């Protein structure tokens, strides 16, 4: 779906992206990882046709992003890291305006606005001004606003920044749903557990260069670190029981280490998984 070949972007003497080559298959949920300043955002801007590369090429669905940026933008939906919304306008006004700017009109616009309201689960707050929404609601609206035109490829730039666990789960569900409906998703984040939870393919870049890429399984298998499996025991069973059972089955167990539940596990257990939409 997205093919990046020998991409190089320089700002004066600074080389933001250096000879980057990547291939994002159609229908993939692709994690793009890298520390701050690694070149993730510049790469996304190149894919969207907002930055003209110094060298190399970017194609989306076979369309050159430099030669035909408008065509590429019709195929992609970029979920910006910032909350790119009009605070003074209502949820509905935001969706209608942003859908209209994306080229939708008439019944198609109305249908897509309804779809986005359902996706973001913001129908009860449809007439609320965005400035009155909670951070999580704004994030969901930010995501839905980018998908109004039904893009084939969705690029999410750290979409879970500053949201509560419930909204994060909702965003995860949305991304999985998009992928299930056939969209290609590129997901950038600093949170490794998010990539592990969501993505099937991953690329890590640093200093503008590709460090490694492959499926999540390939990356983990090729790391040289022994494989770890997580087993959740029912109440009453102990780690010693597990070790005994594994040995009895003829498996060579190196260690059985009890893993305490994370704070997020406890948080979700106590507060539930449903969305909290109080501003």
């Amino acid at each position, binding site marked *: 779906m997205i093919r990046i070949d020998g991409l190089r972007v320089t700002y004066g003497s600074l080389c933001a992206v250096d000879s980057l080559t990547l291939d994002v298959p159609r229908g993939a949920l692709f994690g793009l990882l890298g520390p701050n300043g690694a070149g993730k955002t510049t790469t996304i801007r190149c894919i*969207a046709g*907002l*930055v003209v590369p110094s060298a190399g090429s970017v194609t989306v669905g076979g369309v050159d992003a430099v030669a035909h940026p*408008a065509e590429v*933008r*019709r195929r*992609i939906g*970029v979920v*910006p*890291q*910032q*909350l*790119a*919304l*009009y605070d*003074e*306008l209502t949820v509905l*006004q935001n969706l*209608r*305006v*942003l859908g*209209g*700017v*994306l*080229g939708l*009109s008439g019944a198609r616009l109305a249908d897509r606005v309804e779809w986005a309201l359902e996706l973001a689960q913001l129908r009860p707050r449809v007439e609320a*001004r965005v400035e009155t929404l909670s951070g999580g609601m704004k994030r969901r609206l930010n995501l839905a*606003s*980018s998908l109004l035109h039904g893009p084939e490829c969705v690029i999410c730039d750290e979409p879970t920044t500053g949201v509560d666990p419930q909204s994060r789960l909702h965003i995860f569900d949305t991304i999985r749903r998009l992928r299930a409906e056939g969209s290609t998703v590129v997901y950038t984040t600093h949170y490794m557990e998010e990539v592990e939870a969501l993505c099937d393919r991953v690329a890590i870049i640093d200093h503008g260069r590709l460090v490694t890429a492959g499926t999540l399984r390939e990356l983990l298998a090729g790391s040289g670190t022994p494989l770890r499996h997580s087993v959740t025991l029912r109440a009453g069973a102990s780690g010693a029981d597990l070790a005994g059972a594994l040995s009895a089955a003829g498996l060579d167990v190196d260690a059985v280490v009890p893993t305490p539940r994370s704070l997020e596990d406890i948080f979700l257990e106590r507060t539930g998984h449903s969305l909290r939409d109080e501003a």
Partner: protein
Amino acid sequence: MKPLGWLIAKDLLRFRADGRGALATVLTPVVLAALLGTLFNPPDLANTVRLAVIDRDGSAGSRALVEAVRADPNLEVVPATEEEALADVARGRLPLAIILPPGSGAALTPSAFLGAGGGPARAELVFDPSRKTEADLVEGLVTRIVFEQTMSRITDPGSLRALLTQARALISSSPPDPDDAAWLDVIDRALRLMPPPSDGPPGAGSTGLAISPPLTFHRRAAVVDSPLGGYNSYAHTFAGMLCMFLLFVAADAAKELVAERRSGLQTRLRLSAVSRGQILAARALSVAAIALVISLAVYAVGFAAFGIRVLGSWWGFAAVLCAQALFVGAFSIFLAGVGRTERTIASLGTFAILVMSFLGGSMLPAFLMPPWLRALGHAMPTAWATDGLAAMTWRGMDLAEGLVPATILMGYALLCAAVGSRVFRWD
């Protein structure tokens, strides 16, 4: 609706969403224009100039002068001692004081023309330096009163008889001259023609010779002949204040445009179906639409509450308002492009707007400025906007007089839009 339309609609919705802000953009220029309009009311409605007159002479002549000054409808003489008057002027409580020196009364008699009384008296005019215009006005008025009084005395038979008798004595006592006989004959014949002297004081019971000044003035304001009336100071101040506050609206819009870059909204828009040019054009057009709405609201108040009327061409009025609105829209793009950051736009915009408003005559009447500043003012779009609106309202000019400023404002709009979009920073 096309994407461009949605972009414009978005700004209009945002303007409407901030109801209090929208109301302030209308009320602020109205209130300031009303206050300034009151200051620049026509002279016949204006307050009189207050002054103190200190009579050090105390003669009948100087007392008569003080009474004549007091009787002038343009002046209000306040009672004060010399010490009080000087202190009040120094403190700014009184614009000026006139001190009549000893001998003032004698200097005002007709015989003073013949050198009697030691020549002209030198009155002192002490004024507050910040109120020089009032001092100039009073000096002119008092000079006129002095001449009127002197002329009145010359035309008084008793005074004229004394003057002629004095002249005859002067000629008789001077060294002999061949022309003396002829002059003395003229004087004697004039004295014989005059009525006999009365027992009363000079001028009493006499109508004089009815000599009148060779040139008098009839004041008439150069305004359109209309049953609705002519000059309206509010029409002038509403145009100026409206122009200035619309430019502040433009500065706010420029800041919003730059803030959209920071918030990622601009990137979102660039990822949509609109071009960069459309993004800027939509912003300029939406600001222009908002400026037009504010203009109509401000003039609606002006028409309803301050008696402003379009005495000229309504089409011309509409043309100037539309051109001004488009200039304001383009000015927002110019500020956003040149200013680049919100802080710079705030400082640069305030500076540019105040300078343009000052030079363009929105804040002060142009006649108070030196000639070179007045000339510079003609280069300001604000001057064309305010003059254009004045031409269509109280000056009562025709459409052609409105199209000239409208065309020039459009030129400024194109220039601002071109420069602003060229230097606008997208990333």
